[in-house]
């Protein structure tokens, strides 16, 4: 059983008048409570795949099956309702929120839109969500721009889990955070995965982080799958040229290599 199955996905853009393939014939699957990492250099199509999977951009070809239904066939209200099960956390926790929003409003929106809790009950739900991601419930009244980057990313995670999704796309979700905060956020993500059985599509260029959290990895190069497999095995012994280059570029990993 799979949560998400992507097959033969393709997306072409025009750059300087010439068409180029941002994503070219990419296929992968993610099981329940599994973390699949997408790795690759800038411009390898990682973020485009995230946008395609979330239906923020429409693919040119391919198929996306989410929870065993054709996700690309959905539109309008049916698509919006389905989005409750498929959430995302963005790289820049400041850009991901309306600059005028408060923490409470950010968390209230998904609860209201998907009718998860009646108005009177939502305040308690918001407090519970904040506590679930390790934040003080009193933070609800604060404006988004008043809290720290690490707190913001926790709020983003709280928003993502508010609708009880089966899959969360994490697009470079820890890349903008400093090292100590990054560790805590990764810890929180692993804990949520264990408790709620959420699958992650974990997009990162950092093989160190990927080795720490991902079960499997897909390495992309110029929109194509270069290699894929068990995360530790691939990182310990990359077969593709781009995989070797990525491992070389991560000093800590080179030193540890046998």
């Amino acid at each position, binding site marked *: 059983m799979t949560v998400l199955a992507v097959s033969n996905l393709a997306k072409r853009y025009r750059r300087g008048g010439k068409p180029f393939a941002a994503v070219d014939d990419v296929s992968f699957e993610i099981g329940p409570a599994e973390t699949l990492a997408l790795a690759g250099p800038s411009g390898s199509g990682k973020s485009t795949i995230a*946008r395609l999977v979330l239906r923020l951009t429409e693919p040119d070809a391919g198929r996306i099956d989410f929870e065993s239904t054709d996700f690309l066939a959905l539109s309008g209200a049916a698509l*919006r309702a389905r989005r*409750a099960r498929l959430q*995302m956390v963005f790289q820049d926790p400041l*850009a991901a929120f309306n*600059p005028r929003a408060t923490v409470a409003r950010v968390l209230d*929106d998904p609860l209201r839109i998907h009718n998860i809790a009646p108005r009177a009950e939502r305040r308690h739900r918001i407090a519970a969500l904040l506590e679930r991601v390790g934040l003080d419930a009193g933070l609800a009244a604060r404006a988004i721009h008043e809290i720290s980057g690490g707190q913001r990313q926790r709020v983003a995670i709280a928003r993502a889990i508010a609708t009880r999704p089966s899959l969360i796309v994490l697009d470079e979700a820890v890349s903008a955070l400093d090292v100590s905060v990054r560790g805590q956020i990764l810890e929180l993500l692993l804990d949520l995965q264990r408790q709620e059985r959420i699958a992650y599509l974990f997009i990162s260029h950092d093989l160190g982080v990927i080795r720490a959290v991902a079960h499997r990895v897909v390495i992309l190069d110029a929109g194509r799958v270069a290699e894929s497999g068990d995360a530790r095995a691939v990182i310990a012994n990359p077969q593709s040229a781009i995989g070797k280059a990525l491992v070389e570029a991560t000093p800590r990993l080179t030193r540890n290599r046998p």
Partner: protein
Amino acid sequence: MSRLRRFFRTPEAIAGALILALLAAMALAAPLLFPGDPQAIAGPALLPPFQDWSLPLGTDRLGRDVLAELFHGARTSLAVGLAAAAAALLIGSVVGTLAGFAGGLIDEVLMRITDAFQTVPSFLLALAFVSIVGPSLGVVVAAIALGAWTGPARVARAEVLSIRERDYVAGARVIGMHPLEIAFREVLPNALPPVLALSSVIVAAAILTEAALSFLGLGDPNRVTWGGMIAEGRTVLRTAPFLSIVPGVALVLTVLGVYLVGEGVVESTAVRRSLS
């Protein structure tokens, strides 16, 4: 608090705010200081200013108190200017947001309509509209707004085009928010600052357009307006020039005050933007 202080740092902003405060005080005090009908006869006709201290600014051709007319005219000018500008900003930002956010065919249609309105001179449009529908305060407001909403629409659309690519708009889609809610709750409030920066120009233009319409006899006949006063005074311009000069000066000061305040607001927000 610090925003207010920054606003009042420039002498232009202080002067503008003083003029507008005076104007607002005049408009609010008009029914208290001059409780009767300002269009009623109050004394001998064509009394020059500063002769009779019960009628400090004299009387017009029909013996009406010029000072009372001036105060009541401030009400009309302010009401029409603010209402027309508010209507223009509202229509403009809604049209601009829909066009920019929806894109495609909706964008094309809305922007061609905007083009069509923009190619017709706004004063002729107002003139034609009032001539057809008939002069009343609401019609004058609608006529002025009709010619003034295109500027805000274009600015709003340009701003929305840049905002709709931001992560938080994608985030709103991801949580399943309805596109109309995204457009008007997430995008529009953040696109407003540059649109609101246009408001001083629009208010000033609306006050002038209202005066021009009244001057041509297309204002609300039941209300005193500065434009109407200037038109009244025109027939006796040689013998009693003060009848045109007094409302004319009031008009110039008002428009100047609105401009200066607008300038001050833009200045103070510009500083804030460059600092942040």
